[in-house]
């Protein structure tokens, strides 16, 4: 994270991709895109393309991993080997295992796991094309896929990052901003209550900047939350029109 010579905000306050400081990248969300999964979501966020499938609740196997009082939430964040500039070896690396862990923990907060003891709810997050902010994009898509699967939740979780570039707090860092910016703050919330369920920070922020960035990230979450709900509504309507639901 160095701001070196690269100018990330121009004299008109525009960022490299033309966005203003408070603008999100373009986001497109579609629910129910897979045949086999119990719930699914396809999400594009800037250059990110994410596919999520939810399976479950289903019996946890082997038995000794079962929790007698609640469902296990098992998110698996995986990058396709062709999703990044330099080919990634298939299989989990340390970064993806950490992301899987923090996303699993965040999702567990909103899922009513006590309703399904001894089961597992598997949330498979595939990053097909990656460009800064995949963990927020993945968690956001997971929220939609869980709702599409009919998993009971207290809220639909949503994530967005804020950050600092060229000394200024901005929303939703893009690729160069992530590489050369001063700080990145991915945040996930339960939007009804603004409870914070995921939070990480790298870089350098004063307390004042942190407060500003946190507020901004939460604001971003609320915008995206509306897109999630719209995608689910569209899905519901297409099911009604298709006659799958009366």
């Amino acid at each position, binding site marked *: 994270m160095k701001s070196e010579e690269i100018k990330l905000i121009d004299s008109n306050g525009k960022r490299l991709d033309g966005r203003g400081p408070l603008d999100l990248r373009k986001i497109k969300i579609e629910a129910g895109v*897979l*045949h*086999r*999964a119990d719930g699914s979501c396809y999400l594009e966020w800037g*250059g990110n*393309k994410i*596919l*999520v*499938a939810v*399976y479950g609740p*289903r019996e946890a196997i082997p038995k000794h991993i079962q929790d007698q009082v609640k469902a296990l939430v098992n998110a*698996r964040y*995986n990058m*396709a*080997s*062709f*999703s*990044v*500039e*330099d*080919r990634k070896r*298939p*299989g*989990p690396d340390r970064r993806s295992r950490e992301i899987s862990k923090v996303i699993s923990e965040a999702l567990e907060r909103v899922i009513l796991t006590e309703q399904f003891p001894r089961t597992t709810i*598997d949330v*498979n997050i*595939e990053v*097909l*094309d*990656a*460009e800064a902010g995949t963990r927020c994009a993945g968690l956001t898509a997971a929220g939609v896929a869980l709702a599409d699967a009919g998993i009971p939740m207290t809220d639909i979780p949503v994530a967005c990052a804020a950050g600092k570039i060229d000394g200024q707090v901005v929303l939703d860092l893009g690729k160069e901003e992530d590489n050369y910016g001063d700080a990145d703050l991915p945040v996930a919330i339960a939007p009804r209550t603004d409870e914070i369920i995921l939070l990480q920070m790298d870089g350098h922020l004063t307390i004042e900047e942190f407060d500003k960035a946190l507020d901004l990230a939460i604001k971003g979450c609320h915008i995206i939350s509306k897109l999630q709900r719209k995608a689910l509504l569209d899905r519901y309507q297409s099911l009604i029109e298709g006659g799958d639901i009366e």
Partner: protein
Amino acid sequence: MTIIPSIKRDYLCRLAEQGKRIDGRKFDEYRKIEIKPNIISKAEGSALVKIGNTQVLTGIKMDVGEPYPDSPETGVLTTGAELVPLASPDFEAGPPQEDAIELARVVDRGVRESEVIELEKLCIEPGEKVWIIFVDIHVLDYDGNLFDAASLASLAALFTTKVPAKRFDLGEDFPLPLREPPVSCTSVKFNNVVVADPCLDEEEIAEARLTVATDKNGDIRAMQKGLSGSFTKDEIKKVIKASINNGKEIRKILYKSIGK
């Protein structure tokens, strides 16, 4: 076999005796095939193939590396397949299992033995540096017939691939040099009936599987029999014939999708 599959089996067999399939197709008929080329921006080439509900995405990445000692002037091809748990409740995370390995190897041989890629044009410095091609098959939704979907997605992805010479300071990007590809067609046998392009329900009760790759002249370029059932000589000949016919149609769809 638990009770539900056994009922499904009976149902499919009864249908077959009446000359019918569960989704209304004829025995030698394919489901609808869609090819969306070039959809992954980070990849050098890519294609999403849908055969009915089955979806397979292949991405191509390229790198510069050392050739094999016994072929110092040819590029290197590496094919992998991941049956990620996204695609089916029965796929598990972890290193590739037998099914994924067989899938990758059959696709690999289809490309390699038919010399689809002009690997001899991918030498940068003899014995030192050649282009390495990674064909990564990502199964997204599994409703049967992965062999054909993976093979078709891989061919389509190769045909969209640009060699990223510029990124490696090796001149201008150029399209991957390719020859006419063979097209794979798969059939399965159950209850003495042979059907092309099995859907998942049919695969689940299949006794034997046969994949035949044919070229545009109708010659055979690769075959792979699978599962624990057997074929008679006549059944094999019948499958070959159907594969040649279906191969022609699929070749048209492939060519159209890549603007050829």
